[in-house]
């Protein structure tokens, strides 16, 4: 498990980068929960996927690149009703996306990459999706 301190740190990082009006309406606790929930979601991943709309009102892609060299991950199924995961509020996700965009502007970058047990999570602007997919060797399939 990721240490809880990391979520606290990430939440404060976000809070410091969002406009004051938004900061007033999203509490640090909500951001900590959102990061904790996102970690629980990532923990369930067993293959590569792209989400283009994880952050409401913020144009960012989220690409999860599964570690195909590693062993198949075992994820607990359990009873969904009994699994108490932290909440993932839309406002917290918008705040996280806004902070990421702000940091991209500050650092003149267009993506942020996070490695996790051989897997990768890449949050990027939609305009560079083709570069990110090419770099990670990913071909996206869609269902018809």
């Amino acid at each position, binding site marked *: 498990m990721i240490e809880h301190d990391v979520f606290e740190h990430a939440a404060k990082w976000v809070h410091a980068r969002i406009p004051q009006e938004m900061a007033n309406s999203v509490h640090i606790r909500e951001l900590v929960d959102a990061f904790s929930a996102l970690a629980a979601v990532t923990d369930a991943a067993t293959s590569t996927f792209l989400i283009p709309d994880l952050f409401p009102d913020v144009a960012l892609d989220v690409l999860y690149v599964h570690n195909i060299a590693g062993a198949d991950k075992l994820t607990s199924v359990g009873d969904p009703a009994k699994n108490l995961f932290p909440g993932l509020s839309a406002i917290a996700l918008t705040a996280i996306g806004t902070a990421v965009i702000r940091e991209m502007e500050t650092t003149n970058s267009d993506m942020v990459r996070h490695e996790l047990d051989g897997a990768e999570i890449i949050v990027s602007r939609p305009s560079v999706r083709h570069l990110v997919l090419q770099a990670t060797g990913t071909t*996206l399939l869609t269902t018809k």
Partner: protein
Amino acid sequence: MTAKTPRFERAQDFLAQRVVVAPAAKRIGMQVHARIDRMPSSAQANTTGLRALIRSVAASTRQAFRAHLAEFSDNAQRISVELFYAQSNGLKPYEQVALLLEAKDSPSVADVAARQRIVPIELQRALIANSFHHVDAMQALAANLSTHPETLLPLAAHPSWGVRTAVAANIGPRMKVEERALAEEKELVFNTLIERYEDSFAPFIIPACKDPEQLQRIFERSSLTPLNAHLFTDNPYASNDILLSVVSSNTIGLLPGGQKVKERARSLVDNRLGDHGPTIN
């Protein structure tokens, strides 16, 4: 769970770095929509829903991939695509071998199988046994860093010059890497290449050779170009005889860059012999 600090960077730089340093394995993925509910009371449901969605991605990907394969009327094309994404789909080595055997007459299938980032040893053996005549595939297999020395050995005697040179390019640099379990088999491939030495092996074999006698044999069979001579003078195991031959070669001196190589060989011999031998002019 091991996590590293997130890195902000430019996608263009990320791509350039991946292409040069560590090309990614080919993989397939699915695009899915999060459909986050904006109602404040839906936070818990958002987590549960997103988690369920992510759990279902693997099955959806398999289904979409099967649908994609069903579109191919050409069997060889279909198998090529299956092998192209074998690693991403977690195909077992015996499944990959079965696919190869299903279309063993197809050069493109053999080529795709041999170009995988990691070719399972079972597939390597099947490629040698069934696709030895597919030159492009054998060249790709010979160049693949995942290819086992056991597989490289028959390729070192392949009728194609390109395949043999690719074996040299593969094993030469690997001789400098310690792979204890493979040491004997690597040595066998290396010695085979020396026995069958060709000029095109020079840049890969000469720098890796640590045996003065083998170097002497290679030298006798090498055309004495400035490039080859440079490789010999750079190898500390090269004998004085080799260096003296370079120094006294009239041909090298006439070729571009040859004079410099001769001077370097002369200074090396002078250093080695010091006060105890003759001064070379």
